């Protein structure tokens, strides 16, 4: 790192805002995609928009690549550092700046943890709807970058539907305030374009987010099946019958075993081959009506039991179990590869079978826990990253699963993003022209491609547009 640049950055951030020495940078070498590693040259932890912008101006002058990082819980390597690059972390930007109850929005700094926002507005009868499984740790800024989903996004939509405005620092260090337009955007919808851009266009430092009214009645139901197949089929039945819960999740037996062995002890029955986890919400009469539709449908599909969580404490436990399933799988092996692919819902059963077969053929252990309502599969493959040969089999299985999902009319990612993990797969889905068009859009913001290079859009496509 150039000493002049380092001095400049230190002047802006002070010692507490820099992570410089090697032994302190090492924990930043990966995010949730733990096998992909690169030591960052330097980690910057600015406290606000101004500090971020001043740092990014210096980095622009020095042509240094930048990767933004929230809590490092992403699963596609979106926050994996790049060679000779600097990491900008938002972990010291944790202030909730404004809560507007009447207009139902909150303005927050990018490093606010997802669940902390919901806690802050709980007393007002409001919540922030997108609820990724990592919501107790992940940041809202990271959610915007990845357009994160979550179980309840089946009803409420993913992050992009909840972002009303952004303050963005561009790759050149300019502050772009897009938080004024809270209704329909004037001109191009830049907020919509930025959301889900995986750190390629700049760093969002302040977010204006929609708050949702807490439903008067919420019920959590479990339908227990002997077979995973039956649970999958049941999902389409529910939607066809217009019994639309706010969340439709499926957990298989291996997942249940791991969750029940953990501190979460959620209370999932170990005798079930698969559990359909459903949440009903609305006015009392609506919830009761949905429950009436539910019962005969799940019975007809072979559920041997349908039960309702007795109280809020049990509901909380069941959801904590669902959301901690990824961590709980750490009991099975040191590492876990969480695939993320989307298929048309009516093909859920076939694809779940196929992913299982793909993993078995490669001698891999797979557990399934997924957002069934959205057709969003998450085959969880256990492995040990120290075993290079096993890791190669895992990645090969991941590719095969994605190809199977694409062949069935699905797509590459439901919520984890493309990042580093699936950048190669972009060429399976998009033509060279498609990718070149994406590059031109990116270069309008970042002509040097310094923001999160090597993620989301294959660099080769960018090279081609330039020549």
């Amino acid at each position, binding site marked *: 790192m150039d000493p002049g640049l380092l001095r400049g950055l230190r002047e802006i951030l002070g010692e*507490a805002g820099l*992570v410089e*020495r*090697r*032994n*302190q940078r*090492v*924990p*930043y070498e*990966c995010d*949730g995609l*733990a096998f992909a590693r690169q030591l960052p040259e330097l*980690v910057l*932890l600015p406290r606000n928009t101004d500090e971020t912008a001043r740092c990014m101006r210096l980095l622009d002058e020095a042509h240094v690549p930048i990767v933004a990082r929230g*809590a*490092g*819980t992403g699963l596609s390597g979106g926050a994996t550092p790049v060679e000779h690059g600097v990491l900008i*972390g938002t*972990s*010291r930007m*944790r202030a909730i700046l404004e809560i507007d109850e009447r207009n139902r929005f909150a303005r927050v700094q990018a*490093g606010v*943890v997802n*669940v*902390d926002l919901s806690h802050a507005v709980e007393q007002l009868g409001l919540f922030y709807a997108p609820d990724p499984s*990592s919501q*107790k*740790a*992940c940041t809202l800024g990271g959610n915007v970058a990845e357009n994160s989903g979550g179980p309840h996004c089946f009803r409420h939509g993913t992050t992009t539907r909840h972002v009303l405005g952004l303050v963005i620092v561009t790759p050149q260090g300019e502050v772009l305030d897009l938080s004024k337009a809270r209704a329909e955007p004037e001109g191009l919808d830049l907020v919509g374009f930025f959301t889900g851009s995986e750190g390629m266009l700049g760093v969002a430092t302040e977010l204006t987010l929609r708050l949702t009214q807490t439903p008067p009645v919420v019920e959590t139901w479990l339908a227990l099946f002997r077979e995973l197949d039956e649970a999958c089929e049941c999902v389409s039945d529910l939607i066809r019958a217009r019994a639309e819960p706010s969340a439709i999740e499926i957990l298989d037996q291996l997942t249940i075993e791991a*969750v029940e*062995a*953990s*501190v*979460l002890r959620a209370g999932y029955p170990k005798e079930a081959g698969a559990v359909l986890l459903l949440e009903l919400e609305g006015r009392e009469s609506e919830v009761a009506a949905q429950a009436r539709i539910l019962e005969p449908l799940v019975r007809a599909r072979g559920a041997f039991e349908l039960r309702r969580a007795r109280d809020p404490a049990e509901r909380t436990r069941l959801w904590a179990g669902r959301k*901690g*399933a*990824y*961590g*709980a*799988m*750490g*009991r099975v092996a*040191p*590492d*876990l590869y969480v695939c993320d692919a989307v298929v048309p819902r009516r093909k859920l059963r076939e694809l779940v079978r196929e992913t299982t077969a793909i993993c078995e053929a490669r001698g891999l252990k797979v557990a399934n826990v997924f957002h069934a309502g959205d057709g969003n599969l998450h085959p969880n493959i256990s492995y*040990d990253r120290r075993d290079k040969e096993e890791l190669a089999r895992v990645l090969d299985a991941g590719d095969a699963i994605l190809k199977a999902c694409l062949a069935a009319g699905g797509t590459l990612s439901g919520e984890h993003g493309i990042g580093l993990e699936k950048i190669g797969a972009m060429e399976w889905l998009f033509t060279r022209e498609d990718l070149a068009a994406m590059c031109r859009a990116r270069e309008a913001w970042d002509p040097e491609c310094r923001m999160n290079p090597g993620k989301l859009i294959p660099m080769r496509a960018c090279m081609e547009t330039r020549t």
Partner: protein
Amino acid sequence: MDARTIIDYAKSLDCVHCGLCLNTCPTYRLTGREPSSPRGRIHLMRSLAEGEIQADADFAHEMDFCLLCRHCESVCPSGVKFGALMEHTRAGLAALEKRPLHVRLARAIGFGVLLRDRGALSLAAALARVFAPARMPLRAERAYQPTLTPAEGERTSAVLMLEGCVMSEIFGGVNRATAAVLARAGCEVRATPQLFCCGSLHAHSGESSGARALAREAIEASEALCDERGAPLPLVSNSAGCGAHLKELAALFEEADPWHARAAALSARTLDFSQLLAREPQRSLLAARMRASSELAELSPIAWDDPCHLCHAQGVRREPRALLALLPGVTRVELAGSEDCCGSAGAWSLTHASESSALLEGKLEALRASGARTLVTSNPGCHMQWDAGVRRAGLDVRVLHLAELLELATRN
């Protein structure tokens, strides 16, 4: 010594890097730095074991910066034994002598002299009263328990009470209250000067040989006190930190070591005093003696602050609340973030004074918001920390040990 061997490598592999621990970690929330988080520290440990990094001063600093509050263990879906991992690493660092000379000297005095001898500790406490009165609680009192406190009314059981090192030097009144409440609940309470310091502070700081020596003393002392059938008495602790350590004592010894089994047996008979009192018949006996009084009413509303080593290390959350619910004419209000660390963490508040104050500031804010007039805890470190904080902030709040409150309510 190969620095790589200081890590309990197998345990470090339990971490799957999900990050669900991050937001619970006091030092991560304070600094926003990944190496100061549980996941970051495990990453460093594993990197050291795999030869990627050196056990240098930066590494030692991150390990020492952890409060060992173990909040991360309460939320870890993967079941990482973070406390054990950290104690193992610190023991290795102590052996490598990576710390500066003045730190090593202070540790030698603290762990080798003060906490090994009641006379030396007593002298140090007396000096502290004179030279550092601000750090001492208002009602500091030295008192040692009689070897026998008979049960009041019908004797239903007998227990051995751990007096502890800090408790008897600074919170003698708390020990007296604990013994009185136990006696009123039908327990005959035994105490012995042979059982002095449990060694938890040694173990937390990586002084493993000192911890083992004290563990052996504690095991022998406790085995000497038996019931009518010759079985060692249950050991009751009123200090969350000591209780947590005693419940995991076997971790100090290799499995082949005969002391391992004896330590495990001691762990199996160790209880926090709230666990014992929340059981029958103790609970009913205690409830029958509860009397409303103006003195008690003045303390209301009260707030319970879970000591980390009670809720996170021992998983005891329900019992203290159940006992507080018995108090007549007293309302209990919830303290937001009651499972967050207050920044005391044994000697950490001395070695990291400014960070400790910053953590306490958040807790004081929650206390103000709760409107409580009495803050209840059950660990001497937390007690001192709250006491100092309340005084510094000028709050009209009393800080009491759970046993003191129960004693007051059952006094006739």
